[in-house]
């Protein structure tokens, strides 16, 4: 069992959990993820490692409530335990040790961007960050990101904070006005990553995205997580989750992400009115 040590509400639907998982914490690196099951009849879902502390033996995950499992997880409290917490999985991000890197995070995607920005910042990389959300109250980890960025830009779709518009507006402007970025790292909804990759492509800047497809085992055994990158099928859980954004077939990824939409809705409805009350 893996105990929840701490919980923070980042916005009404995004919660941060610090979980006791010493073996995972010991080997975790930025870019990796865990597979989590929250009760004995639960599904296995991938969650990005948002931070880790090998000394304390803890791993931080950030969860947006989008379906039944994430809603139930969101309702759990410190002292509750997760039966299964497997990791760290995936290939660690190959982060540069110098130069200038733009970190772009959209919505809950800011959480996976954070450990990468932090690791690069600590190594002396000039980190310029752009984070966005639909509206000001949904923006997460702003202070954390500011602390590890040379400069931080904020965007909201409705203009309630920072730039009124999308992260891509800022990405485009920075690339045009400042040029000379060594890399862009973008994590967020698929459409956002696709848009960022489109914007960076003409500038010829290496652009990394982090994919989060449907997974079952997370260890390369089932192929549920397959994505097409550079015309080849790759298993995201063992070959990713970071891929070259200019090579990813986003249309396919978006389509595959919708595979279980109906079932997710059904499960969520049943869970609201069913009153089975798993977990916390």
């Amino acid at each position, binding site marked *: 069992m893996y105990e929840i040590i701490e919980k923070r509400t980042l916005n009404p639907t995004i919660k941060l959990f610090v979980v006791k998982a010493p*073996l995972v914490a010991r*080997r975790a690196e930025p870019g990796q993820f865990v597979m989590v099951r929250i009760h004995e009849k639960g599904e296995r879902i991938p969650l990005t490692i948002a931070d880790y502390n090998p000394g304390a033996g803890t791993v931080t995950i950030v969860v947006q409530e989008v379906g039944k499992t994430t809603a139930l997880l969101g309702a759990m409290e410190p002292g509750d335990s997760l039966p299964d917490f497997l990791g760290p999985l995936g290939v660690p991000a190959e982060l540069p040790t110098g130069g200038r890197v733009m970190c772009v995070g959209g919505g809950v995607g800011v959480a996976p961007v954070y450990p990468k920005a932090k690791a690069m910042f600590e190594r002396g990389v000039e980190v310029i960050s752009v984070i966005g959300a639909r509206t000001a109250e949904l923006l997460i980890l702003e202070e954390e990101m500011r602390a590890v960025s040379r400069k931080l830009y904020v965007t909201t779709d409705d203009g309630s904070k920072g730039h009124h518009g999308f992260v891509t507006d800022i990405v485009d402007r920075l690339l045009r006005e400042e040029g000379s970025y060594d890399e862009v790292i973008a994590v967020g909804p698929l459409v956002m990553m696709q848009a960022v990759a489109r914007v960076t492509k003409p500038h010829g800047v290496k652009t990394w995205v982090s994919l989060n497809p449907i997974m*079952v085992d997370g260890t390369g*055994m*089932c192929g*549920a997580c397959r994505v*097409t990158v550079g015309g080849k099928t790759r298993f995201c859980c063992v070959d990713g989750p970071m891929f070259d954004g200019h090579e990813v077939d986003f249309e*396919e990824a978006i389509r*595959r992400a919708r595979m279980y939409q109906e*079932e997710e809705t059904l499960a969520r409805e049943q869970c609201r009115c069913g009153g089975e009350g798993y977990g916390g």
Partner: protein
Amino acid sequence: MAVRKTRVPMPEQGSAERIGNFNEVPLGYTAEMAQEEAGRCLQCKNPPCIEGCPVAVQIPQFIAAIKEGDFRRAIRTIKETNNLPAVCGRVCPQEEQCEVRCVLRKKGEPIAIGRLERFAADWEAAEGLAEIEKTGPDKARKVAVIGSGPAGLTVAGDLAKKGYRVTVFEALHAAGGVLVYGIPEFRLPKAIVEREVDYVRKLGAEVLTNVVVGYTLTIDDLKEQGYDAIFLGTGAGLPRFMGIPGENLNGVYSANEFLTRTNLMKSYLFPEYDTPIKCGRRVAVVGGGNVAMDAVRCALRLGAEEAYIVYRRSDEEMPARREEIEHAKEEGVRFRLLTNPKRILGDEKGWVSGMECLQMELGEPDASGRRRPVPIEGSEFVLEVDTVVMALGTRPNPVLPRQIQGLELRSWGGIIADEETGRTSAPGIWAGGDSVTGSATVILAMGAGKKAAADMDRYLRGK
């Protein structure tokens, strides 16, 4: 009573009823049936049946015990050499191992050795008699077993019995390997696998789930933690796809995913269980092995109205067990033999809408000795399906083996290990089961585990 030429039939769930549930299909012998069947055995002096058993179960001895009604002696005899009789009695291909060699086959049907083995194991479980017997004093030496399939469980059981401190590391949240995630409930109830895993635990082995060696812990970590001998029982879990257009459409699964969702995650009980599965009304399973039969029979139980096996060779070459093919036919599975998919077609939303196939004919024998299927030009046709499951075989997952210095692998990824001892080219590391042979059988994985455990014991005693 005249000795019958045919075996005592096994009661089964009728096909109409069973495709509506995931309960076991063959229901097992009663004591009377088992004793009658055991009565047919000739108790051969040089029993050929034993030679066919990869772990050399003393077949006539246990059958004699059943005949006499001494079921306890029967199961103890089996367990001297076979740690997982309830599993083997259900899923071993007896028809090509022990039963095919039975002398009675010359005049009629061979003894139903598998059914009798199952009977003895189920009797023991029902009576709650499983005995924990240690054969050696507790020892200080630590052994790591990676993977909890039949190979790993056998090594763990044998070495724990001898008194070693054994830890099994399993990547998934449940132990059992293919027995829990691949083979469906209606062929091997999961409660039986749990019982076997519990037994290994009771022998003193520790079973840690949620540890994927190579990620959570490395082989070097294990060595530092004082594991003196390491067994790789990691199986062959990497699925293959055909590489044809349309394979990433929504509604195309690997058999591993289809079966894992169904069996390990219990998606047939969705939404009571949280994992969904999208099994359409018309399902094609590509392949002709046991895995394909399991997948297609799951599809029927998940509500498919039409379920097809699409196989590029003919009936004769299908590698699946006859019994499984027969069960599939009884349940209404349609066989499209000498048929090979060319591409999968999708609708405007990216879901499978059909599969274009080619008709094949058999040509010259290939390297495997089977006649090679060759496409008939212009024979394309579309099979209207909304779900496709690829059951084309699996390979060992390369992630862990590649991390181990000095570990030699075959070109297709199999670990090279000595057949008699399980030793690999890396010092202190043994391997066995599907990780060495590629997809094979439960009993071969167990046999390899037995040999490796014996050699690990020799090695540790000499150290």
